[in-house]
């Protein structure tokens, strides 16, 4: 089984391609999107993504806007912000808005994978709690 299912969102196409190749080799399922709207479409259509790696600076919908939209539509999906040096502030802003963490470009692969694992772990734990709560609710109904 894959370590996690993630989506890479960045407008730099060569970057996304290179990253996905590497991540796939490391046993991570990678989806890609090249702008915010595309990402949202794909996330809401097919809800298997667990972690989104999101570039902060993008034309059109920028990183923060995309983050807000994600948190609105698919709140359980964890988001890791990806930032160049000039935009660290936006990444921190993103964390206030609910992002899991941020990473600097260019990224160290092991570091990235560790973070992805963590994020995926959290998402799964959260989902489990929800399931447990539902069960409890059902069983209490008939208690």
């Amino acid at each position: 089984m894959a370590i996690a299912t993630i989506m890479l969102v960045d407008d730099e196409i060569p970057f996304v391609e290179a990253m996905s190749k590497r991540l796939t080799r490391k046993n991570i399922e990678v989806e890609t999107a090249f702008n915010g709207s595309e990402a949202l479409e794909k996330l809401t259509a097919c809800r298997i993504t667990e972690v989104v790696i999101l570039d902060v600076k993008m034309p059109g919908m920028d990183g923060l806007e995309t983050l807000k939209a994600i948190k609105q539509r698919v709140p359980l999906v964890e988001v890791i912000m990806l930032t160049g040096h000039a935009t660290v502030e936006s990444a921190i802003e993103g964390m206030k808005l609910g992002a899991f963490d941020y990473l600097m470009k260019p990224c160290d692969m092991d570091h990235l994978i560790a973070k992805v694992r963590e994020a995926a772990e959290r998402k799964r734990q959260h989902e489990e709690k929800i399931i447990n709560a539902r069960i409890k609710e059902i069983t209490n109904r008939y208690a």
Partner: protein
Amino acid sequence: MGKSMNRNPTPLSPYYRALTRNMVLLVMVISFTPMLLVTGIILNQFSASHHEKIHAHLEELVLKHKQNIDSFLSEKLQNIRFLADTIDFDNCGRQNMIEEHLARLQRAYGPVFVDLGVVNEQGQQVAYAGPFKLEKARYADADWFKKAIESNYFTSDVFLGLRGAPHFIIAVRKSCQDQKWIIRATIDFVEFNRLVEKVRIGETGFAYILNREGQFQTKPIFDFTPDLDIYNRYFSTLERMGKEVEIQERLDGTGVKSLYVSALLNGGDWLLVYKQASSDAFSDLRNAQVIAVIIFVLGGIAIVTMAVWMSAKMVRRIATSDNEKEIMNQQVIETGKLASVGELAAGIAHEINNPVAIMFEEANWLRDLIEDGAYKDEADIQEFERGLNQIRTQGLRCKEITLKLLSFARKTDSRIEDLDIGHLIEELMALSAQRAKYSNIELLTRIEHELPTLSASYSELQQVFLNLINNAMDAMDKTGGTLEISAKQEEGQILIGVTDNGPGIPKANLGRIFDPFFTTKPVGSGTGLGLSICYGIIQKMGGGITVKSALEVGTTFEIRMPVKTGEGLDNQTVAEPDTCN
């Protein structure tokens, strides 16, 4: 000027020299005018009043002396008349009698009576007492006798007479038994002279008596020949106007300005004249004037010195301040430039980061492949090629970006050079393209072909336009929009417009927008220096910058710049060479 020059040996430009000259002139005018006025007015008043006083004083003096002399003469006459009444003419031939009379007179009145004589109708002196041998003198032909025999009493002019010494006679006619007798007394000239001699004031003031013929009746202290006409005039003036005393200021025989104070004597036969050189009479006034002039001159020198020295100092100070201000302006511009570069740097850094990240990933990817041993077959080799090409591509991208930055950073001096504004604008638009993309801003340029060249500092103009572009992009950061730069030629100027369709600038701020340190950005972002620097730079070039804005519609900055001189409106003309050869 000498002192200040040592401290700051650079010569002053014509502007400062003119400023110094103006300051000096102004100070001098302001200082001298009241001084002149006051001195002039006071001296004038003093002079007028002094003149009056002196005239009055001299008139009094002469009047007093005239009265003295007149009373002397009349007194002597009375004496002789009294004598005439008491003399016994028949017996006066007897020597002793006359001598007794003379002795009595002299006892009573002093040696002023020199001698005494009785003369009969025929002019024969019948009795004589006195120091001269005139017992048998005959006066029939004498002038004085002729006059004396005609009137009751007579005072003669001073004359030499039979004795050969100056004297004058008082004669009284008496009728006795149908015979006319003349009692004649000689008045001592020296005594008489003394009366007048005593009248001395100052160094040159003295008095003398003239008769109607202009002959001296007293011995003047300074001898001269009187001009008859003038003195006749005095006579007539005094008589005609009934004045007691007459003053006149004129040049004397030697050309010295003198005061002449005259009064009639002896029933109008004689003229008492007092003469004094004007400079002597008004010596006090002269002194005052001299003192005033000395003070004025000294004061004037002091004023001029101070004016020149202080003005020079002041202007030096101004020049230094202006210089410092200029330096500070330059620094401000530099700072502004750095700030612009700073803003630029952020964009550029991000730009570079992307290709670098890609290169990094590709390199790592290729390493992973090697680790896995996937470099053996054809497909693997192709993958390596692809990866390496990608690295190369991104590397080139980095090179482009750094070149862009270098071109901006290199031209940081303010050298004036010929530049093509269209090229500059396009360069800047390229620099800003990345940021515009991220902010959803469309960049448009509408630059006329064949714009004439400008003569300006490349880096300063870059700063101006970069600033305007950044401002526009800041305004449209959240909303996106269009940024258009247009450039066209109009009447010997180049008109450049930077237009955005952002939120616009409220009317209240429009007036202050070029003020230094005015900003609507939050604290910490933006210094508010940008537009004021732009304004300064454009002004320095002889151009102008204006702004038009409407809320919700957008903002346009309009810049006018003069075309390089030597190139006319017609772009085809060739610039004329300055020198032959």
